[in-house]
């Protein structure tokens, strides 16, 4: 599973992307966030307030109940501010 982080989510976690293999119990975005938070302080700080975290699966905006699989590309970031 490829996981990407942007903006201050990346700043807090310390890497822009990583390949991870969460256990099979992780089936959706929400489960993935919970699993990531257990990986260390940076993750905990990044996902402290999930109301200001947005997710994309395979480059499409999704909600936290969206299913994730081993071959997906998942990204976490704050609300976007283009333009």
């Amino acid at each position, binding site marked *: 599973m490829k996981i990407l982080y942007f*903006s201050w989510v990346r*700043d807090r976690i310390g890497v822009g992307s990583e390949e991870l293999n969460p256990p099979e119990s992780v089936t959706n975005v929400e489960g993935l966030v919970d699993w990531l938070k257990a990986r260390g302080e940076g993750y905990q700080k990044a996902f402290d307030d999930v109301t200001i975290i947005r997710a*994309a699966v395979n480059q*499409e905006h999704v909600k936290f109940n969206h299913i994730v699989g081993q071959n997906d590309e998942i990204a976490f970031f704050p609300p976007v501010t*283009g*333009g």
Partner: protein
Amino acid sequence: MIRVQREDFDYGKEVAALSDGNTGVGGVCAFSGLVREMAAGSEIKSMTLEHYPGMTEKALAEIEAEALRRWPLEKTLIIHRYGRLEPGDQIVLVAASSAHRDAAFDACRFLIDWLKTKAPFWKLEESDQGGQWVDAKDSDNTAHDRWLEKKD
């Protein structure tokens, strides 16, 4: 047309391309966004735009396709820059050409409104106080929502 690029762009040339050689165009509406020097009370030295390569192009192409579906347009254009910019620099250009001015105006505003809430860009402003990620604005969500189609 969609372009995501680090380089600056020639505003006049880009907008001219929306009507050049097409005498069916009656009006062209264009909006360009620039880096302001003051933000939240402090003087900005630079603004660095980060984006999500791949997803950005996808998101912009979807917004453009939606505009072309909703209005009778001749051409549309979205150019969005990323990387380090300074006050006065151009960030973004959206434009639409049509036989009719209302379609050109509405489509142009739709492009920038949806781009702001859907395209994966983030802005880091640097001032004397250091770097600061810009928060998304509630007013951008309101602007986005005015283009939601009513469901039956």
